[in-house]
Structures are given as C-alpha cells and as structure tokens.
C-alpha cells in the first residue's frame, strides 16, 4: 500500500512540476444561441476551446473576465501588479500600446499563419512582425434602400462608377421625390458614421501604425468635409445637428432616408422591430454597399474593427510556445466558427465562410465581402487619451457644422489641440 501511495505521489509531483497555469483574459462569452438546430450548442465557446487546449497540453488555464470598455487601464493595472494575462482577447483598438517586442510575442515565429487573410494580418503587424491574431471582424457598410431606387428608376452602378459625384447626382434625384439621400450625424459633434466620407476621400485620422498624433489635416480631409457640407447645403440630409447614429438607424429602418452607415446587426434587428411598433408595414428591399469613393480612388474603406488575440511574451521559451499555441487555438477556425454563426462577426480566415445561423442572413452576406474589397478603418483607437482627443473633434466639428469656423480652421485647430492631448499622454 505504501509503495502504491509513493508511486501516486511521485506521479503527481512529476505532473505538477511539469504543468503550468496560463491566464486568458476574455472580454465576453460567446453563448449558445437557442433555437438554431444546425448550431452546436455550447455555453462559452472560447472556454471550451481553451479547455481542450489545456487538456491536450496538460495545462491549467485560468480564465478571467474584465470589462475594459472605458479603456485598457484594467489591463494596465494587471500589468503593473505583475500578473498580466498570457493571452488577451479584446477589441483590437485597445492593443496598439502593447504591440511591441517588450510586451507581445512575435506570432509569426510560433503560429502557422497560412490560413489567415493577409489584409487582416497586416493590420496587426508592426515593423514586419505580427503581434496579434485577428479573431473576428466587425464591419459596417452603407445600407441602401433598393425600393427607393426602384421608385426613381435608378440602378446602382458598378463600383468604379460609384463615386461621390455619382452620389450627388443620385441625391438630387432622390430629393426631387422628397427622400433625403443619406445621414450627416452631427448632434453633439460629427461622429465616425459621418467621418466615413473623409475616408472616402482618402483622409485618415491617424497615419497607419502611428497612434501618437492625429494626421487628419490634409487636402483629402478638406475635400471630404466640403463634400459633407455640400450634402447638407443642398438639403440631401436631415438637419445634421439634430441627429446622431441612433437616429440614423431609426430613420433608415423606418424608410425615411435612402442610406445610412450601419452594421448588418442593426438592420436585422430594427426592421422587424419597426414592424412590431407599427412604424412600417413591410421590410423594404435593401442591401449593403461600399460608400461612394472620391473620383480618382477605387474604394472607400469600411468602418470596422477586429477582436484580436494578443500573446504576452515571457523569458521562458517553453511557456511562450504554449501561450502562442493557446492564442492560435482561441482565434482559429473553431473559435471563428462560433463567432461567425452565433454573433455574426466576419471571419478573418481564407476560404472560410460558414453560412448558417447568424451568417445565413442576407444582410450578413451583403456586408461580408465589403471589408475585404474596400479595406477597413477604425477611426479612433480606444483609451482615455483618445476619448479626450475625440471630444475635441466633436466640439470643432459641431462648430463647423454650425458654420462658426471654416473647414481649414476646423482641421488646424483640432489637430493642434488633439496632438497636445496625445503628447501629454505619452
């Protein structure tokens, strides 16, 4: 009996000595979606995948949940306390500060990346190294009411002719029958859903890979803002200072405006809801398209963001391999399948397009390809300094929409003030 006990203790000691505990920080749970027979039900898909990985590698994985919706300070606090998570799943906009060799693993050295789409990998690469794996992509598009186009006898042109000039011509036709062409949302300042027109003219709030200072003051931004002004001045939009993005969704899904930026989730939820509330009797024909681009450009990028997986580097190379493996597991095909079919996110893997569950919706299919053909932008990274800088943008754009300052004053004053804030935060 003593011998058996000794053997058991010895085995336990070997296992304990060899096994490790990794920490995975998740920003939420992908839950079982009831009522969809084709979807394998599981409460906590990421947890299940992490559990499988733990068993396969004889690990313990401690999963913690943290809400960092007001910035990455929760993570910073964990880092300061010396216990940052080995693997962190969250909105990619929290990650730029950690995408470097000091903190993150160079994932291309550990993970087989052949299945991932290069365009998404490039978004999370710095200086030729990949510091985060894209788990899922959330994209927006320009929702357009096709029934209204039928009413005026207009057919959407091919993408190369879908320009801002063409859109102004369409807007005039729509105005003639009393339909506003689109939304300029300026209540409390101009938000990202309107700033898309700046991107459609080739402007960007930040230079790629550099979130240390805004770089919006450019001829392209001037052109974008002047285009917005044209939309407003010609009466192609509802009064901009009285509407925000919520109003945009409301007006589009009640058939009061031809187009609006939104996610497919907005339309899928709100059209049936508007019928329930008696605001419309039938869902109009609609689809998602790219925003019209400025003449001379080929596409207008779509506003979107990725949920990504960051892997923390340690001095223990064996641990690094395990951490990278876990990061790959929780962002791989199985994880993406759950995200796509349950939450309606878009995959970041090549040739991977499940079409059941949330992914079966026509609106999902309409928007699915936009990010890949048009490119994706996320105007503002998340974090307190960006919230402060964004408030300055809102303040100046509101003044600009009220015609208190000129376009050039808006851009130069904003850039100066915002960069002061960002510089102070360094």
């Amino acid at each position: 009996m003593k011998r058996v006990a000794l053997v058991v203790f010895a085995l336990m000691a070997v296992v304990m000595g060899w096994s490790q505990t990794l920490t995975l920080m998740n920003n939420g749970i992908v839950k079982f979606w009831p009522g969809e027979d084709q979807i394998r039900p599981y409460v906590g898909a990421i947890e299940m995948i992490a559990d499988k990985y733990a068993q396969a590698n004889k690990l313990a994985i401690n999963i913690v949940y943290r809400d960092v919706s007001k910035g990455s300070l929760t993570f910073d606090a964990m880092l300061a306390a010396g216990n940052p998570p080995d693997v962190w799943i969250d909105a990619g906009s929290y990650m730029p500060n950690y995408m470097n060799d000091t903190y993150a693993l160079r994932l291309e050295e550990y993970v087989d990346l052949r299945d991932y789409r290069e365009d998404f990998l490039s978004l999370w690469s710095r200086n030729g190294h990949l510091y985060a794996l894209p788990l899922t992509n959330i994209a927006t598009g320009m929702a357009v009411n096709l029934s209204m186009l039928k009413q005026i006898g207009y057919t959407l042109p091919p993408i190369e002719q879908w320009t801002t000039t063409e859109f102004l011509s369409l807007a005039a036709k729509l105005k003639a029958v009393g339909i506003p062409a689109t939304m300029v949302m300026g209540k409390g300042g101009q938000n990202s859903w309107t700033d898309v027109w700046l991107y459609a003219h080739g402007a960007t709030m930040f230079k790629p890979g550099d979130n240390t200072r805004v770089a919006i003051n450019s001829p392209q931004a001037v052109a974008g803002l002047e285009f917005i002004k044209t939309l407003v001045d010609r009466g192609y939009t509802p009064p901009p200072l009285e509407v925000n993005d919520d109003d945009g969704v409301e007006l589009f899904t009640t058939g009061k405006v031809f187009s609006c930026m939104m996610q497919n989730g907005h339309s899928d939820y709100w059209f049936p809801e508007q019928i329930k509330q008696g605001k419309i009797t039938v869902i109009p024909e609609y689809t998602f398209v790219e925003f019209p681009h400025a003449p001379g450009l080929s596409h207008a990028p779509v506003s979107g963001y990725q949920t990504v997986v960051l892997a923390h580097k340690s001095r223990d190379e064996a641990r690094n391999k395990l951490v990278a493996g876990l990061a790959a597991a929780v962002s791989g095909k199985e994880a993406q399948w759950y995200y796509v079919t349950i939450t309606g996110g878009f995959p970041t893997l090549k040739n991977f397009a499940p079409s059941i569950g949330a992914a079966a919706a026509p609106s999902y299919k309409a928007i699915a390809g936009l990010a890949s053909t048009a490119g994706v932008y996320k105007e503002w990274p998340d974090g307190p300094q960006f919230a402060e800088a964004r408030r300055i943008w809102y303040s100046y754009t509101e003044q600009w929409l009220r015609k208190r300052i000129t376009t050039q004053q808006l851009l130069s004053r904003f850039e100066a003030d915002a960069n002061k804030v960002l510089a102070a935060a360094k």
Partner: protein
Amino acid sequence: MLLPAIGFYLLSFAAPLIIVGRLSLFQADYVREVYVGLGNYAHALSDRFFLKSFVNAFLFVGMIVPPLVVVSYTVASFLSGFHAKVQSVARFVLFIPGLASGIIMTLLWRWILQREGLINLVLGMAGIASVPWLTEAWPARVSVVLISLVSGIGGTVILFAASMHALPPDLRDAARIDGASDRDYRRYIVRPLMVPTILLIVLLNIVGVMQLWETLYVLWQTGGPEGSTASPVYEIFMTAFLFAKQGSAAAKGVLLMVVIAAILAVKQKVEKWAR
C-alpha cells in the same frame, strides 16, 4: 460627547478633502501617480472646456436662482394667507416634482422637450414654430432653467413657508393695531425679517446650481449643443472617469470648491451688510 461628531466630520469631510488635495498635485490615473506640483491647476485654468463650464454655471445661476427665489417667496407669501390645510396640500403638490427621482424626471422632460415633444406640439397647435429645445445652445439653457424651476420650487416654497410660519404671531397683531394692512405687514415687517432666510436660500441654490450634473448628463451626454450645458461637475466627471485623469479632476474639484467658498464669503458680507 463631541468625539462621534468630530470622527464623522473627519471621515466625511476632512479626510476626502485631504485626499483630493493631495491627489490634485499628482498626475494620476488608476494605476500611476507622478508628482506635478501645481501643474494640474495650471492645466485646469487653461482648459477651455473647464472654463466654459464655469461660464455655463454662472449663466445658470443668473437664470435659475433669481426666478426660483422670487417665485417661491411669492408663492409662499400668497399661501400664508390661506387655511393651514390648504397650505399643506398646495405645498405637497408643489413638492411632487422634487420627490421623483431626478433621472426619471429628466427622462420625462426629454420626451417633453424633444423636437416632436409635448411643448412643440402645443406650440404647433398655437401656430408657433417649434423650438429646438435640446439642440441649440440658448434653448438648451432655457430647458435647464425650466426643469430646475419646476423641480426646485416646491422645496424652496416649503423653506420659505416654514420660516414665515416661525414668525411670532404677535407681530401681525401688533401691526394691525398700528393700522398696517396685510400688504404693509408683508412688505415692511415680514420681508426684512425674512432676509436671512432669503440669503440662505439664495446661497443653497447657487451652490446647488453650480453643482448641476444629473439633469445635464441625462439630457446631453456630450455637454449639450456647443458645450452650452456642460457644468463644472460634468467636466470633473469626464476628466476623472472618461479621460482617466484623476489628479487633474481633483484639481478641478478643488477649484470648484474655492469658487463656491468665495460665493459663501460674499454671502456672509451681504448678510452683514443687510443687518
């Protein structure tokens, strides 16, 4: 006997004040603290959003406090001529808006004030163009005044009524014997005796208006059209919890306290002068 009171004072006032005062000298977020001396104060005094919030606060004080005090005093004075039961019912009715949760009342007001809301509906029926109550600067300020008056009058009337009720009844009898009318009694006897109460109520309302926050945040999370309804407390909240600048927010809090203390000092001077 004094120990519990001193302990309570230390815990509820002195300790937070010391902590906030110390914090105001540091550049601090939730994680780090770096000593910056008076840097946060210098930054606060050059922060256009914060300075504008004081302009807004003083405008609100000017727009809310005088009508609130005058209307409340007049109502309390008018009610004092009625039977006690009538007074009591009237005070209760006036106090109802003040009893409801501020957030619920504000949500109700948002519905009333929106473009297609109740007020514009009534204006429309009278052939008057609708007013952008929530989306233009001055109408937005007027909305705040309206909400503050409706929710504040009840409590202020009660304070005035209580103070009037506390006046010795022989004063009225003596005045009548001397041939004073009701109007004379109110004007030459009650009003001078009410000056300390009026000054106290003015002060309380100034402090209250300077600290407006709940209504403004529920109606406009962004500080209102052109920042016209951002109050100092709103700015402090944004600085601390959205921009994660705890030290800077603490400095702004101290500055707000200094301004309120200055108002208190002025009130003391006025009170001495009135006596």
